[in-house]
């Protein structure tokens, strides 16, 4: 029996490699100064979905919500083997918190239609919340299994999985459809396939084509640009290289539940981490210096 999977992926700033320019003077994050990467856990979610397809047949569809630049991670999904990729892109989705994001992605899943398995990385490194997966599952009215580490069995409409809960593991059995969030220990991710890179590096979304046409034909009228964009998109569609791009209207989202108005949590204040240089007692690296420090620690009862 074949299974259809949807994988939720996210493009994130590489928070592990933050440089000096990454923070603006007002303490907010300068996203443009950070390299954008494929959220690490999501690569493992994609791999888990691809492994199910390789073993049982079926399809893998990757979706992401984000700006046009997020097409980068969708192309990466195509390079690694995804069958179909979809960008949910809408200005009105900006400032969505996890609740609103979970809602919008759930709407996108509904639009895709029948699917058996929904996969997401355990969490994204920009927020580390791990909330969107469970919130999507709730919106879709299906069960969730977080911290997926291994597929134990899949037959008919029943799945058995092992989840790692830190101080041990559990094997759970569930009926499909189900949403799973995937740990980085679940698998080794496959690299991009060279042939697929050659083919899919030309894949584009409508928004990207519009921007490219505008850059390439600065003198043309807007009607000419539109005609050119339409022509290119048709060409991409015929070649199977069009990245589908959906707006909030396309996924029939209730706008009150999206973006700022759909987000109960508001950011009140952001502070960048500044080291409090209150100063420390400098101890010379000598027997005498170290001995004095140990003595002080005994006197103040730090050392028993």
């Amino acid at each position, binding site marked *: 029996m074949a299974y259809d999977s949807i994988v939720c992926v996210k493009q994130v700033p590489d928070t592990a490699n933050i440089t000096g320019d990454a923070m603006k003077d007002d303490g907010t994050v300068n996203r443009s100064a950070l390299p954008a990467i494929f959220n690490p856990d999501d690569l493992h979610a994609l791999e888990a979905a691809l492994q199910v397809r390789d073993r049982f047949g079926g399809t893998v569809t990757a979706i992401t919500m984000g700006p046009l630049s997020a097409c980068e991670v969708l192309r990466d999904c195509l390079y690694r083997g995804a069958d179909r990729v979809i960008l949910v892109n809408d200005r009105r989705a900006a400032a969505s918190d996890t609740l609103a994001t979970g809602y919008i992605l759930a709407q996108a899943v509904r639009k895709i239609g029948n699917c058996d398995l929904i996969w997401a990385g355990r969490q994204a490194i920009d927020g*580390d919340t791990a909330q969107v997966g*469970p919130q999507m599952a709730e919106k879709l009215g299906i069960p*969730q299994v977080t911290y997926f580490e291994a597929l134990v069995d899949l037959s008919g409409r029943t799945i058995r999985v092992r989840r790692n809960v830190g101080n041990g*593991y559990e094997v759970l059995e569930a009926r499909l459809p189900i949403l799973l969030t995937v740990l980085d220990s679940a698998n080794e991710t496959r690299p991009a396939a060279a042939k697929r890179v050659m083919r899919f590096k030309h894949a584009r979304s409508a928004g990207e084509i519009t921007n490219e046409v505008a850059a390439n034909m600065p003198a043309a009228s807007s009607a000419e640009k539109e005609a050119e964009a339409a022509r290119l998109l048709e060409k991409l569609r015929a070649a199977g290289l069009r990245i589908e791009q959906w707006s909030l209207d396309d996924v029939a989202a209730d706008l009150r539940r999206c973006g700022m108005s759909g987000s109960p949590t508001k950011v009140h204040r952001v502070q960048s981490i500044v080291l409090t240089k209150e100063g420390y007692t400098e101890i010379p690296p*000598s027997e005498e210096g170290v001995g004095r420090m140990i003595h002080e620690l005994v006197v103040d009862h730090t050392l028993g």
Partner: protein
Amino acid sequence: MIEPNPKGEVWIFAEQEDEHLSETSLELCSKARELADRLGVKVGAVLAGWNVRELSYRLIAHGVDKVYYVYDTLLEYYRTLPYARVVCQLITRHKPQIVLFGATPLGRDLAPRIASEMRSGLTADCTDLEIGDYTEPKTKAVHKDLLMQIRPAFGGNIIATIVNFDRWPQMATVREGVMPLGDGDPRRSGQIIEEKIEFSDFEQSVRLIERVREKRKVNLKGARIIVAGGGGVGSKENFKLIHDLAGVLGGAVGASRAAVDGGFISKEHQVGQTGTTVRPALYIACGISGAVQHRAGMEESAKIIAINWDKEAPIFGVAHYGIVGDLTKVIPMMIRAIREKE
């Protein structure tokens, strides 16, 4: 969601497994007590399970006024959906203003499911909570006595304060080990209220087939003294020095991510954002540069000694004692000095 309800109680979700309360639940009790005293309301705890009524007394000792106890065989082992139903129904029934969960694997599975069903806000992995006022930037409307949900974001490079002023309860998961664990007062009194939750229509869609728990071999959270090594230790052989120093001090061995990635020691020793958060009486950081991710997990330690070659290493920014030098020479000096004091 429920309407803002400033008279509502401050709740914690009491996480238990095999009839033991998690330490994080008790940490939440003291924080909830502090918040509730500031707001002039009571502290409630949701305790769900099978035959775990006895745990109520421990919650009460740690500051809870009312334990909402729900028991059902369905709740014997944690599974998301029945537990989510318990908490959602109790929130709807009693309208607490704040609900706190531990940011444990369980709490982080359960809380978002509840927040989604309630359509209320949830802030993940808070490292601090305060009560404060919030002014809406556009309307200038002032909301008094909100829960300030403070958490690191962007890999620990920023600290964000999050509020939820209109879709209550205000909910947060709270990182393990960041709130002080009180001793508890067995003389405190409180109420145990048995609550009924309807499960007759509940379809059990997820079955637990097997469940294995390992005893934690490394107890960093409980350690009074931690000696931690980083990438600067250089090799697995040199890391023996870290073990030696921990040995003479009776402390635990910690590590930075660089040391774990370098193969000097196993991941369960890792301190920091992705490892364990600790607050021992003494933390000795050896050859640890002090990336934000590491500092986030140890900077609350009462005393910090940093040993590093590089005098510009950020670890010195949080240290009380700093030794700029070669740790392979300094650590043996320390071991000698400690032996001498005895």
